């Protein structure tokens, strides 16, 4: 469990971090909380010559809760998402989901930016951000741009982010009053990724549903969301089962995963509906 050797960089601002990435090309990688990257390095499944630590960059920190929008710095930890007062009342779904990630030790270190940038289909935040219709702000050598969470994921570990770009902030529209939200996740134990997880928002004639770890990207389904908005739970579930594409692994065979996907989704819907007004 010893990673290959690397150079360690700790820039103090975004521009210098991008500079280092530019200088070393695909030899370099940013590290946030390290709780996805370091295990991969120790397994020698990820090897890079230069590690660019984002911990010292203040621009990447902080939670701002506005009337219409919540802005999360990429380096906000999962622990901060859980303990921030204003955030829990603005978008309770974030806290509910964050509490179901790993364990307290991981959440003290793991960041929201790392979680969404990682591109691992097992991560919970990408599906959550798709459900919430979040936007990711990216900074790179060519300037800044924004990509919708629903357009960000291409395949496992492949995202719309260029190698030399850094994800700086996440903007999330605050769901209107009366919107019920729920995150439901089945896992084998504390510290495990989802066997299946569902993020649901419903209310005011609108709905949004996304699921995690049931394909090589998170799955947000337009059809499923529309069906739920129309009040048709069965059609919502059917559309979602159509959209997912789970594979067999140690968590179980495909048939099982599809079954629990439907169970998680129905439970999340029921809870979200009970919270809608």
């Amino acid at each position, binding site marked *: *469990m*010893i990673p*290959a*050797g690397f150079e360690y960089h700790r820039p103090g601002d975004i521009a210098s971090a991008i500079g280092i990435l530019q200088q070393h090309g695909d030899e370099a990688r940013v590290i946030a909380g390290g709780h996805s990257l370091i295990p991969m390095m120790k397994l*020698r499944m990820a090897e890079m010559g230069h590690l660019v630590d984002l911990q010292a960059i203040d621009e990447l920190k902080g939670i701002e809760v506005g009337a219409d929008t919540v802005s999360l710095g990429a380096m906000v930890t999962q622990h901060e998402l859980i303990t921030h007062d204003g955030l829990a009342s603005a978008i309770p779904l974030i806290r509910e989901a964050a509490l179901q990630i790993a*364990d307290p030790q991981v959440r003290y270190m793991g960041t929201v930016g790392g979680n969404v940038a990682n591109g691992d289909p097992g991560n919970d935040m990408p599906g959550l951000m798709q459900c919430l219709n979040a936007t990711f702000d990216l900074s790179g050598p060519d300037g800044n741009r924004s990509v919708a969470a629903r357009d960000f994921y291409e395949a496992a570990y492949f995202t719309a982010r260029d190698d030399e770009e850094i994800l700086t902030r996440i903007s999330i529209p605050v769901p209107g009053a009366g919107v019920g939200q729920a995150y439901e996740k*089945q896992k*084998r*134990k*504390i*510290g*495990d*990724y989802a*066997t299946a997880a569902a993020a649901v928002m419903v209310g005011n004639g609108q709905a949004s549903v996304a699921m995690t770890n049931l394909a090589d990207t998170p799955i947000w389904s337009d059809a499923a969301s529309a069906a739920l908005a129309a009040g048709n739970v069965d059609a919502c579930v059917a559309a979602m089962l159509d959209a997912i594409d789970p594979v067999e692994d*140690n*968590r*179980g*065979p495909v*048939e*099982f995963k599809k*079954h*629990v996907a439907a*169970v998680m989704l129905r439970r999340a819907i029921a809870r979200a509906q009970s919270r809608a007004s």
Partner: protein
Amino acid sequence: MNDQTLTPEERAANLKGMGSSRKRVEDVRFTQGKGNYVDDIKLDGMLFGAFVRSPYAHARVVNVNKDAALAVPGVVAVLTAEDLSPLGLHWMPTLAGDKQMVLADGKVLFQGQEVAYVVAEDRYIAADAAELVEVDYEELPVLTDPFEALKSDVVLREDLEGQTEGAHGPRKHHNHIFTWEQGDKDATEAILAEADVVAEEMIYYHRTHPCPLETCGCVASMDKVTGKLTLHGTFQAPHAIRTVVSLISGIAEHNIRVISPDIGGGFGNKVGAYAGYVCSVVASIVTGRPVKWVENRMENLMSTAFARDYWMQGKIAATKDGKITGLWCHTTADHGGFDACADPTKFPAGFMNICTGSYDIPTAYLAVDGVYTNKAPGGVAYRCSFRVTEAAYFIERMIEVLAIKLNMDAAELRRINFIKADQFPYQSALGWEYDSGDYHTAWDKALKAVDYEGLRAEQAQQIEDFKAGKTRKLLGIGLTHFTEIVGAGPVKNCDILGLGMFDSCEIRIHPTGSAIARLGTISQGQGHATTFAQIIASEIGLPADDITLEEGDTDTAPYGLGTYGSRSTPVAGAATAMAARKIRAKAQMIAAYLLEVHDDDVEWDVDRFAVKGAPERFKTMKEIAFAAYNQAIPGLEPGLEAVSYYDPPNMTYPFGAYICVMEIDVDTGEWDVRKFYALDDCGTRINPMIIEGQVHGGVTEALAIAMGQEIAYDEMGNVKTATLMDFFIPTAWETPNYTTDHTVTPSPHHPIGAKGVGESPNVGGVPAFSNAVHDAFRPFGLVQSHMPHDHWRIWRIANGLGMHG
């Protein structure tokens, strides 16, 4: 202490002897991070070893190219089988009478097998260089199924080709290791043929791994000036390791010092000898420098000893009203690429023949066939006496299967078949003499404690609710009554590599009345320093707090066979009591001399000898100790010390009644343990708090094994569960609350009546959890479903029973 105002009870309490929940003295250092484990050891000039391991489960090793690795600055050596063969060390003997490659000799037989050993100035260089060793493999067909292996033309062990005789008798096939038979085959088959009822089932106990918190490792240090080899390591049997190292290396035994420092859990994983030890010793001899090797977690799970992997075909015969008349078992045992089980020599399937369990079964037959496959070697006793968990799981499942066949309550079926209290000592059909037991008392106490009738009523209601669509959850009540066989063992039938399985204790009393005791065992978390001091305290009347306990250094401790199979208290604990009694016998003579009376005119009184009939005339042990060092006593040597080597007359047979109440979600396969009740009878209880701690830990391991933990392979022989993401270790969250309870039926042959308890909870826990899962689905037609009962497998049961609509 010389206080006459204290009552005998108060004086006894001050000793913190047997029966006291004395706090663990070890925890002072462990809770402060001040333990001293193998990886804490740093010696001057120490080098580090790292293995190159096979990515394939079965392949020919065509070529190993070391050049790129040797070119890395800081790399001192790269060893392969070719380097070891001139020393005859490219293979090593296993504890099971087989031999095992130290480094791949022409082929590899399991994924993760050791191919080359890189020695470097630090562990980072060693890890980097290991990546640069180029190995050419030629893949061979892989056998992961033992039944297929017995039919296949593929020869796994080419080195054994043509050998029809193995260490344990004839080999029937080139992938067959041994057949072990116990009991009366013809009589059992006759009973099965005539029985009112026969239940038959395949019971599989899946492959898992002890996975101790600390992995295996060692530091070998050859001093070329003195010719002495010091080997620090995570050894559960340091003395046996010294003898083995001497026998295979040719270094005289007095020139080898083996030290087991603090050990972070063993559970059987640290009994055997591993390639890392041999390579480190060789590397230290070659370089003249100390060499450290410590496995990482994946190496531990993939290559050092696994546990279980027994396919147990069972038949159980009974009368119409449930009296069991016969038991038949044929086990196919998957041993992996080499037979490296850690069992007493004459028991290639351990004590699997305890599989008649707690029941008075007049006739029985057991046969075990050991088989080679392309999996890691091992087959150790993971927190159990040799194969006792397998035996207990087998019989406790067969009882449930029979209960279904008879349409009987499984608690009642057990009750009418228990060996009765007045039948002890009990001669079992498969050859054991159970020392003592009172199963009915324990069983009734357990059923009452959990309100068994009430639970069944609640379960019946829940089934109604389920059928009415009011709930999607089922309730399972998992019953187990287990009997263990521990404390190996009598030298007449138990040895490992020819070493009799006695154990030992040496006690020295210091002039001021404190003491040091050394034992042939080694604690890995069991709290020996706490409990063995308590035995001595009660036996010789010195406070446990004034007694230091040392184990694990072969230069100072007396020879013993180590700690595993719950043998420490039954064997070394007995030696401790016997050594203490020798001291007390001498102390009696000293006291009589000091009190100027005849030896027979003094009597023992908690912490002193007093003149019979004149209790105010006494000498405390402290006074006696001092006298032993400052008085010339006619006819007595100075000093006060004793040593005892104890050869137990029999094993001990702890037992217990465990009940698990579990709720199961039929839609997701998720489970929730609502209640777990554990009644243990381990005979005399030395430290109730430590017993409770052992039970909590052991049941938690049992939960892991039953509900998810496994070493799984794909058909290519790749290990699918080599990290703790997939290998289930429960966290505090998954761990239920336990209720512990006890009865006390002392062992009649043990000096203090103690039986050993550390492993009971694993032995009894696994069937309790598994039976709970089965019990939940019994009303819907489930008879048998193999562990581990993780979510998808439970879901599959429900799905197979048509519960998903």
